[in-house]
């Protein structure tokens, strides 16, 4: 039983890799999208809201499939149909390369809404005060808008990050597991659980530990996001006034 847990924790490094790569990049992209959504330029507004609508309106599962087969259909670089034995290594079809791209776009769309709402919620008085002090536009953004927005958005973004982590379990449900020459193991928790299921025909032994591993890692991620939240709100002295992090995700993919 202990070995199963160790296997799962070892396999979870792949899930953490997917989340760890796509989350920071998605964060940056989401900020640009949020600025586009709240900005005055009609064109960028249309483009960003269209992107957000498409990626929020369709399931991640279908997105992963679509991207995988779209890359395959381009035939680049060097995809050959199944049956040819000297199949070259397809860099772009590798789940370790393709999946973070899809996850990045997906999480960017969901977080963009969070950040756009936070941008709209930045108190008007704060910005007017900065104007009155003669702040330049750049200084105003980095000193006033940015930290306030981050503080408002952080609790919701924590839930988004956790749900991105949980949805990394979908990757190998659509994209085949990476196989490299040398037979290195790139299985994630879901695939490891499926393997144990195939051997044992016992879903309780195969999937309950996998769920437990996800719960544990979720709590760890939640803890670290809580530390960041405390840092963002460090100037607020009275404890009762701090926006408390609560684990209340209201969407999944």
């Amino acid at each position, binding site marked *: 039983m202990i070995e199963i847990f160790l296997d799962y924790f070892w396999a979870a490094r792949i899930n953490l890799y997917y989340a760890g790569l796509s989350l920071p990049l998605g964060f940056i992209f989401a900020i640009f999208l949020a600025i586009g959504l709240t900005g005055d330029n009609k064109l960028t507004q249309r483009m960003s809201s269209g992107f957000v*609508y*498409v990626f*929020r*309106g*369709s*399931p*991640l*599962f*279908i*997105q992963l*499939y*679509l991207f995988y*087969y*779209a890359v*395959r*259909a381009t035939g680049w670089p060097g995809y050959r*149909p199944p049956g040819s034995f000297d199949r070259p290594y397809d860099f772009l079809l590798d789940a370790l390369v393709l999946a973070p791209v899809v996850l990045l776009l997906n999480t960017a769309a969901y977080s963009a809404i969070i950040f756009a709402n936070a941008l709209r919620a930045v108190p008007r008085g704060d910005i007017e005060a900065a104007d009155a002090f003669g702040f330049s536009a750049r200084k105003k953004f980095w000193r006033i808008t940015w930290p306030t927005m981050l503080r408002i958005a952080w609790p919701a973004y924590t839930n988004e990050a*956790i749900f991105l982590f*949980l*949805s*990394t*379990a*979908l990757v190998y*449900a659509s994209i085949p597991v990476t196989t490299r020459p040398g037979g290195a193991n790139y299985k994630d*928790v*879901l695939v490891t*659980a*499926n393997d144990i*299921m195939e*051997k*044992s*025909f*016992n*879903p*309780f*032994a*195969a*999937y*309950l530990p*996998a*769920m437990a591993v*996800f*719960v544990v890692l*979720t*709590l760890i991620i939640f803890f670290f996001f809580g530390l960041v939240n405390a840092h963002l709100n460090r100037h607020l002295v009275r404890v009762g006034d701090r926006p408390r992090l609560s*684990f*209340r*995700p*209201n*969407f*999944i*993919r």
Partner: protein
Amino acid sequence: MFDWFLGLWSQEWQEFFIYIAGGKHQAFYRSFLLIPLVTVLGGVIALIFGIAGASAARSKNIISSSLGKLYINMVRGIPDVLFFVFFPLAMSLVIKIIRTWLLCEHDTLLFDGINFVGCESSNFIGSPNSTFAYAYNLGVACLSFGIVFGAFAANVIRGAMDAVPLAQLETAHAFGFSDRQVFWRFHVPQMWVYAWGGLANIWMLIIKATSLLSLLGIQEAVWWATAQLGPPQNRAAVGYIHGDWTVYYFAILFIFYIGLTFVSERGFAIGRKRIGRGMVAV
């Protein structure tokens, strides 16, 4: 029937149209009907679980309230796909164990280590193509959707129940209504208004989760696209020779889901206006 239509096109296009109107494609088109069907059935089950979970979590009894809270929080740390893969397998294993007790000889081994053993008659689904297997899989899929999204619904409904003004309920009590009457005639009807937005979100979630049906062993659009229609066709006997079409089928699915989201959003916006009628301050 479509001769006049086909007459407008060249030989290759005619073959193409006949192919995409053929039997396998008709099954593919029909499989789209599963999406609204499972969404509605799963949604209804989710609503039942949601009301049960929410009233359990809000109850004064410590045991039922902690059970309700455990249920609400359970799904939050678990990937939905893991639960969807787990639940049907767990369900069938439980049924198999019960059948082993009832139908097999007394000393039949249940488990060897963690491996399930059982005997011949512990297996109950039989042929995977039978109507029973199809109905069973679909029912279990709806049930697992109901359990997962019921937890989300319970959270929404709990919030909505807390949002109903206490004065309304106290007034009802003062008029001599019993607890049960207050719950069903005042609390629940007023709760809908507050729960509407959250339940609309859950509806969207269920729609998106229907893409996972193929993982639950149901032959729906994703299964047709990946396993049947997408892969390259080289034999003329199939009707049409084509390369790898999988990406086109997924493009159709992608657009279909976005369209479904659009339609649902419109529907909920209309419903929101109607449900708010007669309420004082929402």
